[in-house]
């Protein structure tokens, strides 16, 4: 049985004029133990909204439209915010936020921020026990444990802060960790250290599945087992990393790969191609393929017919004409 299942999940925001913005539409996937799923797409495609939905955390104006999220068969939907915070977050699904600096309270020491997480979820553990547990856990991260635990966030380097945030997010051994651009604020060398730490935690079984959100496809190539590409709230293509990176089939995935650039020989002459235009406004009802306006190979009928997920070359693609 899959450890993490998402079934036809749709989410919308309710504006104060009563309009619905359908930020995420009909997302389905399953994940097995030990799997890292990469989710990529441009800004505003619904990645971060999806994250909130996967935690079952619906804070107005975000509401679930339909669908289900299950961890080990147990649904996360239809829970109050208090219940989600008590029983789901940190225990079942945990999130690593993007800006490590904003995630840590600047007026408190790292050990106190971390101790709060344990104290909020477990009754009757005394402070000494908590600190011992923290030391044991932070010893795994390859940092100067005493220094980091006793430091205020501002005294740490960006890499130490991000590793501390990951450490705090995974203190209670959650089933699933969702990392929303965990390394995009770091330089390349620090990024590598952080990714190594994530692999290490996964191998030690501290968490069992991970969703890694980023728009850096070259990074996903090394991190993820499977990749899902999102566009305008929908998954347009999902397959193994090899399939998506080396043999993309959906026109959008192909365009995304064309926008990449790197310092490899010969790449200086190759011009990265930006995708012209902007994604559709999700507040308006959309008919037909959502990428049709920007698609280089669009046909007239694309704008008329809703595209359904179908299997092409061993992966899921949301395009009737992909081959």
């Amino acid at each position: 049985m899959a450890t993490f299942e998402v079934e036809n999940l749709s989410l919308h925001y309710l504006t104060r004029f009563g309009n619905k913005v359908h930020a995420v539409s009909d997302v389905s996937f399953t994940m097995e133990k030990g799997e890292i799923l990469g989710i990529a797409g441009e800004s505003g495609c619904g990645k971060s909204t999806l994250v909130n939905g996967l935690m079952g955390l619906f804070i107005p104006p975000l509401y679930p439209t339909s669908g289900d999220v299950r961890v080990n068969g147990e649904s996360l939907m239809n829970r109050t915010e208090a219940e989600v915070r008590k029983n789901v977050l940190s225990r079942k699904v945990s999130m690593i936020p993007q800006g490590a600096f904003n995630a840590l309270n600047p007026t408190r020491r790292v050990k106190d921020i971390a101790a709060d997480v344990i104290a909020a979820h477990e009754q009757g553990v005394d402070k000494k026990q908590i600190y011992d547990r923290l030391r044991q856990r932070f010893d795994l991260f390859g940092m100067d444990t005493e220094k980091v635990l006793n430091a205020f966030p501002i005294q740490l380097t960006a890499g130490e802060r991000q590793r501390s945030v990951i450490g705090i997010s995974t203190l209670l051994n959650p089933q699933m960790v969702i990392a929303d651009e965990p390394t995009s604020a770091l330089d390349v060398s620090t990024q590598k250290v952080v990714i190594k730490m994530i692999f290490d935690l996964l191998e030690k079984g501290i968490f069992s599945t991970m969703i890694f959100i980023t728009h850096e496809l070259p990074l996903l190539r090394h991190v993820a087992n499977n990749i899902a590409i999102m566009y305008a709230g929908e998954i347009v293509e999902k397959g193994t990393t090899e399939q998506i990176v080396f043999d993309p089939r959906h026109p959008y995935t192909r365009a995304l790969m064309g926008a990449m650039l790197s310092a490899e020989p010969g790449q200086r002459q190759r011009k990265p191609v930006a995708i012209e235009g902007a994604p559709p406004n999700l507040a308006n009802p959309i008919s037909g393929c959502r990428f049709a306006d920007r698609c280089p190979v669009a046909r007239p009928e694309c704008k008329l017919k809703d595209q359904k997920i179908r299997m092409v070359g061993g992966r899921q693609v949301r395009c009737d004409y992909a081959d």
Partner: protein
Amino acid sequence: MPTNTPIFSAKNISMHFGSGKKLVKAVDDVSFDIADGEIVSVVGGSGCGKSVLAKIMLGLYKPTSGDFTYEGKHITNQRDHWNEVQCVFQDPFSCFNQFFTIRAQLKAAFGILKNKLTDAQVNERVDNALRAVNVLPSEIEGKYPFELSGGQMQRMLLARIFALRPKVLIADEPTSMVDACVRANILDYLMKLKQELKMTIVFVTHDIGLAYYISDRLFIMHEGKIVESGTPDDVALRPKSPVTIQLIDDIPEIHKEWIKR
């Protein structure tokens, strides 16, 4: 007009903060010349001093020691300096005032210029600048900064540069907050600035891949020093300094082993 006087000339400049035990050498004995019309990239990891160097070029810091000149002269008056040297920063959201419309702020930017233009001239230049970054003037009419997406905001920052037409642009990580598609767009606009307005551009980034694509010359910085400099092909493909080798090694590339799982 390309002249023989370099745009920026630095001789043994250092920028130190604090003193005694807490002395931080942000820029440490650095010398370089940047010629007119060149695109130079300054590449390095966090805390290597690249942003401090950018601020020295903008005249926001005065080097603690050494000689730093712009077109052969020391920077004495910042307002005069900013007539000709302008910047694009990393975070577009913190660069605009949320309480004024985009157009009002693009127009207000002309206040720095010495030769005053009429309102009609300013409007025309703003419209042309917006078209240069593929935004129709009508798209942003009456809009406030929070109504735009990150990519559009970053383009507005570049539109400001197209409107002001400075001689020199200092771009401090202009692409680190945007996704890959927008990044390719922004690089196109930077190239356009160079081609159409013959602008000298100093591009500060931690991504050597980007720097490789755009620049005429690369500086690699580490702990306040320039450890390697040269043409993109020399530096990126035949690196000599261990710092450069490490920087290139740490970039996840599609066709190269990175970390084994």
